[in-house]
């Protein structure tokens, strides 16, 4: 791709661009899934192309095509320049980017087994066994589904500053779901992703996961009670903690949202610029929220972002104090940062980069209870919530309301009655201000390509979050 990239940059510069970047980007996605014992989907989806983004007369222009051939470069570059020229007529503030190191590198995320080498028959066999395990739980199970998915994402990036990067990511996901109907109609599911190859299918363990998912679906439909409305201690496991981080910390610290660039769709942020550097108290002094895409194997892992900036670990919240935004080269420059934090990402070749989450998590407490059992033993009364069921948050990311799939009462340091339809609602700083205990044990969970952002073309991004089992005090719990 070097020739195409070089030609495109040359063409853009000769056409008056002060900056040009080219992304050859594509993915191969395989999905195999079943519903109620029958194959629901089984196939491969290929999407690839390249895009040229230029700055001319201080304005951005972008054009793309699915035809990755050198003979298309002249026209695509010309169109990108034409878009920039049109924009520049109304541009008030010229685009300026942070200066970043020039990088020349090739990187491939590590994996053991290429999932695209595994036969469809083998994959279906695993899903059939999983389905059988769910079905064995009896007539109360009314609907069953499961699946696995594999993504190979590659990017060849080059810009007019001299950066050239080839990056290839491989990630795998698996999911199981059961719906049980008896006294109530209830669902339970588990779906996880990691930046690994087919070896993740073993780690996910369809047999074990199918067993507990279906057992808990039955418990929910037959014996679980709705919780009474109360304010109490609330413990979250790493996945649901991760979703809570995603919505209440991840999105409000995206710098493009803060600048109002997402107001038309996703919303803005309560973490306005005046709170940056002002020791704003985001949560209790136990809250250390860190963005670290350099961590291998987690779904948000990457070595470089999609503007060619090296991924880095940085604090978003440290000891409860708001410390930093997620940014790209343009937004970082606007607020006076020396460098981008490396959060520019695209979901397809024909999309412009946006500020996106990668791997954002809550640091564990090395002096906290060892594990979940120890944390529950430390809790006189409260509720332990597991798994995502429903989520909603306001446009500034302060008022959220999430429901968990299954919960358990905690009494005198022990788990008790299973609970269904358990909802927690809070204001973001109040909720994080209540974090009072965390385990040493921690996990990062991949949410899959499910974070939607950007209009008019929504881009679904793969992200990971998590942390320790975490206890929040005085949380508003109710049912619905």
């Amino acid at each position, binding site marked *: 791709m070097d020739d195409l990239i070089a030609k495109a940059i040359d063409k853009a510069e000769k056409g008056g661009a002060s900056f040009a970047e080219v992304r050859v980007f594509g993915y191969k996605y395989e*999905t195999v899934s079943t*519903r109620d014992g*029958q*194959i*629901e*989907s*089984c*196939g491969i*989806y*290929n*999407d690839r192309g390249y*895009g040229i983004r230029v700055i001319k007369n201080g304005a*951005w222009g*972008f*054009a*793309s*095509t*699915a*035809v990755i051939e050198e003979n*298309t470069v002249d*026209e695509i570059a010309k*169109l*990108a320049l*034409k*878009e920039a*020229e*049109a*924009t520049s007529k*109304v*541009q*008030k503030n010229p685009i300026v980017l942070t200066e970043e190191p020039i990088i020349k590198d090739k990187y491939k995320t590590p994996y053991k087994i290429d999932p695209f080498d595994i036969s*469809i028959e083998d994959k*279906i066999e695993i899903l059939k066994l999983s389905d059988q395990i769910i079905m064995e739980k009896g007539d109360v199970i009314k*609907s069953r589904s499961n699946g696995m998915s594999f993504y190979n994402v590659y990017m060849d990036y080059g810009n007019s500053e001299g950066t050239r990067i080839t990056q290839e990511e491989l990630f795998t996901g698996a999911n199981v779901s059961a*719906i049980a109907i008896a006294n109530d109609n209830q*669902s339970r599911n588990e779906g996880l992703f990691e930046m690994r190859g087919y070896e993740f299918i073993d780690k996910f363990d369809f047999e074990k996961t199918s067993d507990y998912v279906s057992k808990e679906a039955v418990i929910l439909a037959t014996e679980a009670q709705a919780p009474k409305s109360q304010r109490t201690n609330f413990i979250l496991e790493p996945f649901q903690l991760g979703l809570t981080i995603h919505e209440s910390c991840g999105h409000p610290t995206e710098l493009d949202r803060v*600048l*109002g*660039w997402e*107001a*038309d769709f996703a919303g803005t942020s*309560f973490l306005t610029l005046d709170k940056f550097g002002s020791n704003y108290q985001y949560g209790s002094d136990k809250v250390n929220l860190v963005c670290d895409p350099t961590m291998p194997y987690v779904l948000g892992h990457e070595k470089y972002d999609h503007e060619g900036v090296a991924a880095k670990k940085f604090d978003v919240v440290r000891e409860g104090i708001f410390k930093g935004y997620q940014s790209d080269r343009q937004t970082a420059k606007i607020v006076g940062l020396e460098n981008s934090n490396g959060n520019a990402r695209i979901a397809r070749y*024909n999309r*412009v980069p946006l500020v996106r989450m990668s791997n954002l998590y809550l640091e564990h407490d090395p002096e906290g209870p060892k594990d979940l059992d120890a944390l529950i033993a430390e809790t006189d009364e409260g509720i332990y919530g597991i798994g995502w*069921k*429903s*989520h*909603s*948050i*306001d*446009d*500034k990311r302060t*008022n959220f*309301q999430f429901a968990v799939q299954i919960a358990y009462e905690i009494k005198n340091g022990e788990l008790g009655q299973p609970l269904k339809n358990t909802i927690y*609602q809070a204001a973001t700083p109040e909720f994080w201000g209540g974090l009072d205990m965390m385990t040493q044990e921690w996990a990062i969970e991949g949410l899959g390509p499910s974070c939607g952002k950007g*209009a*008019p*073309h*929504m881009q679904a991004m793969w992200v990971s979050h998590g942390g320790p089992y975490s206890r929040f005090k005085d949380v508003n719990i109710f049912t*619905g």
Partner: protein
Amino acid sequence: MMSLEQQKELLLELSEIALKKVKNLGAEAFVNASVSKQFATRFSNSEVLQNYVDFQRNFSLTVVYNDKQKSTSSTNDLSEESILNLAEYVTKIAKLVPPDPMYPGMLTEKQQYPKLQLNDPNAHNIQPDDIVDKISGAIIAGEAVDQKVEGVSGNFLLVDGYSLFSSSSDVEVIYPETAIVTTLNTQAIQGDEESRSNSDFGSRTFTKLDMETESQEVAERAVNALGATSIEPGDYEVVLDHQAASTIMLMTSMATSSMQLISRRSFLNDRIGQQVFDDKLTVINEPHNPELLSSRPIDDEGLATQSFPVIEDGVLKNYSFSRLHAAKLGAIPKGCGFSFFGRSIGFPFASVMKPGNKTRDKLISEVDNGLLVTNLHYTNFVNPPLGSITGMSKDGFFIIKNGEIVGSAKNMRFTDEIPRFMKDIDIGQELRQPTSMMGIGGMVAPIRAKSFKFTSKTEH
């Protein structure tokens, strides 16, 4: 680069090649494919952030073997070699997957596809300058409304191209389509206080897209939303303006999808013929209405689209089925199959609400003590079998006293059950088409609901 017309011919040629190849391999197949030119713009704080252009293409092939085995894959590489490889691969997989005894096989019944005018013949000639001029006009018009208007934000998308369905059962339908969708979001500021208002709208014809008038209305609403006071959560009478009503109708439509029936998670399960809603609510799926951006002659499974009532006088009349779901549930599909990554669900993607005979202002005038809700944000099901949903008010939340808007309120969260609050409603007479991100259209009128539960509040 090929023109759209040339790409249309290419799609026809490649679909023929793919279907022939699959036939030679002993299977049947159908193709869903599209090519389009897309102009997009993101703008914020009265500045254009990014203009871009893309040539979108997709070729999806579904192979059916022995009538019961099915596989789908797709590519956007429209070379002959790529399409032949695709045909070979998908056929191989279709032969490997276990048969689904309920799959109805290839569609063989002859269909009558309507001829619809769904494109703007002049769209091919639109240039980036034309789009920037239109957006600039909207920004200038919004800013001119009041000095308190701080900035106009939004996005714009024009899609112009062709969609194709063809099958080895001798079906070949290709039609041109143009859709323009846009959003305006305007910020007003007074002292330390900020407010915003929003509008999603669209058109099939570029020259008919009146962004200036809409921008003025949005700006006026943003200015009027300044000075918001905090009110207590509780049960309020509300007027749900077009965008808010559109969210409620989208959630209701989701509950009529065969996907929700198959998974047993719909609050409308087993309720055909029942009076679930107020008798003032009638919703028709009208996929031949040219004004609807989601109208089309054919669904993703090759069935001719057709009009049918979803809800009539408050009585649930029809679910929407894919062919497989219809076979499983003993129903007849009505051309509302919607496919993604090999899965097909039924969805009433072109629903139109029957308007009432009262203006929106009249609906407001009949409220003694309530709220006008412009827009709902991040609405999700809490408990689908109950129809329980939650979300936030956004972009203009106004207090109504004695039939008049007397001020603006700080946003609140609602959590309520659709079949409860839609049981006592009135419908306005002005139909509009708020566009959605999901490509699912709908024309709605404002809804006045006698009781709507707000459960918590915010500071903005």
